[in-house]
């Protein structure tokens, strides 16, 4: 079981929307859609773990922090993200982080 964390990404949300459309048109069942999402969770987790190799550094000021159910949620302000190739600045960013040591499904 992989984290369902990545469902709230562009990729995950677009998949969910597409599945919703198919459910609405009754081409698939909600149960099947759930299975698809579980498959997505596995695929994205493994893709990130294996196919992505880059590193990012960032610095900013911490506005809030929250740790609940082993999930950290931060809100940072005036953050600079540095990659080898580029620099990205944002005024506000929210970070949601699950425990990287265990691999429990978070519903």
């Amino acid at each position, binding site marked *: 079981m992989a984290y369902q*964390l*990545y469902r*709230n*990404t*562009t*990729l995950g949300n*677009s*998949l969910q*929307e*597409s*599945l919703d*459309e*198919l459910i609405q048109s009754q*081409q*698939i069942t909600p149960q*099947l859609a759930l*299975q*698809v999402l579980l*498959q*997505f969770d*596995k*695929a994205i*987790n493994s*893709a*990130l773990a294996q*196919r*992505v*190799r*880059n*590193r*990012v*550094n*960032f*610095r*900013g*000021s*911490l506005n*809030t*922090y929250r740790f609940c159910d082993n999930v*950290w*949620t*931060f*809100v*940072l302000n005036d*953050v600079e*993200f540095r*990659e*080898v*190739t580029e620099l*990205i600045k*944002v005024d*506000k*960013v*929210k*970070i*949601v*982080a*699950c425990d*990287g*040591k265990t691999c429990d499904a978070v519903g």
Partner: protein
Amino acid sequence: MACVNPVPKLYRSVIEDVIEGVRDLFAEEGIEEQVLKVLKQLWETKVLQSKATEDFFRNSTHSPVFTLQLPNSLHQTLQSSTASLVIPAGRPLASFTTAELGASNSSAGFTLPGYPIHVPAGVTLQTASGHLYKVSVPIMVTQTSGRASILHPVQQVFQQLGQPSMIQTCVPRLNPCSLQATTEKSQRLETVPQQPPILHSGVVHRKHFENATSDILVPSGNEREIMSEALLSQLESSQYISVPGVMFPPQVSQTGSPVEPVLRVSASVTQNLNGGPLSTGRPGAQHQHMTDTQLHVLKNRMFGCDSLKQPRNTEEPSSLPVSEKESNSQMDLSNQVTDDDINEIIQIDGTGDTSSNDEIGSTRDVDENEFLGIVEARDLKVLEEEADSISNEDSTANSSDNEDPQIDVVEEDPLNSGDDVSEQDVPDLFDTDNVIVCQYDKIHRSKNKWKFYLKDGVMCFGGRDYVFAKAIGDAEW
């Protein structure tokens, strides 16, 4: 050195993996392969449409390619030659100079890589449906995304050149466009045929709204009426139609239809007029002279009406009051329409109405003074009551508010202003466009210095996506 962004490839591979992974599931459920294909297409389309990977997946042009042809023979008064422009609707910016357009004196075709397209003055554009537009003011055509293709009711200087039949055909198509006559009649001057793929306003909106309005407004009110009526009549009579002035006054919202592809053309009226009335009072030279200032005028208009007065004063002082009024109304309309895709448009009505602010402010000051003594005692009482019902934290805030009750009364809700500061921030605080979803290896804190060791993350900044295998960060709380 990572020159290529890994995101699009990664996304594609994930999509492929998932589709393959569920293929068996679909088969078990007895669902057709077609449904799986539909799912994949939907998914890919949504991902492509999002800003996350737009720069990567898209290969510039696709879809609507429209041809702007400028029949050379019909333009004898144009300074620059006619050219036919094939403008594909693509994302990359494209601009071409006057030289490119005006170089040839015969019909020429230009393929533009995409929006925005800068159309210099003097070019006559013919839309794919055959409608001709003559550009007397440099215009910029941009493409906004995802809007209904309805032309703004920009008042269009619409010049038909040598093709009366087109005018007639144009007329019915113009209806949605709702060209707004410069007069304040409800009558709409709809001379702009809808040409969805053709042009429309990103940046152009503001500028050319102004152009349109300024040009149109410059003539006196009678002239405008004449123009609109003449235009309509000419449309029906399939004569040449030229409307002095420009483009499209931002009166679209009256039609209630956002206009995406807007062809903004300002035609030089006088010279090619067949009908007399339209060109009254508009010598060509004046029109030409106006074009440069029009842009400034329009800009000024967009960002405040007051500044508009000055440049306009130099041109047509007599028409200022009426024009300004119309421009204001037009501005409101345009703002309503274009707000969605241009966040920079400044709203001049409502709370943003500069002219009324002073009045309100002065009035409120007077009222404030009058009520100071009365309110103060009452406020204290009210605040105390509120404090009881709210948490202690709030009551503390209330006590501080008690010191300045009159200010609270005047400016905001006196009972709750200043309260709940932190509570209000929290929901907004966690609602942001920039999100990172990841896993943490280690989170460390020392006093107020935090260190983050994150991994396997997907970042979304303003819609654009990034990924990382590891991220290390520092922050001070």
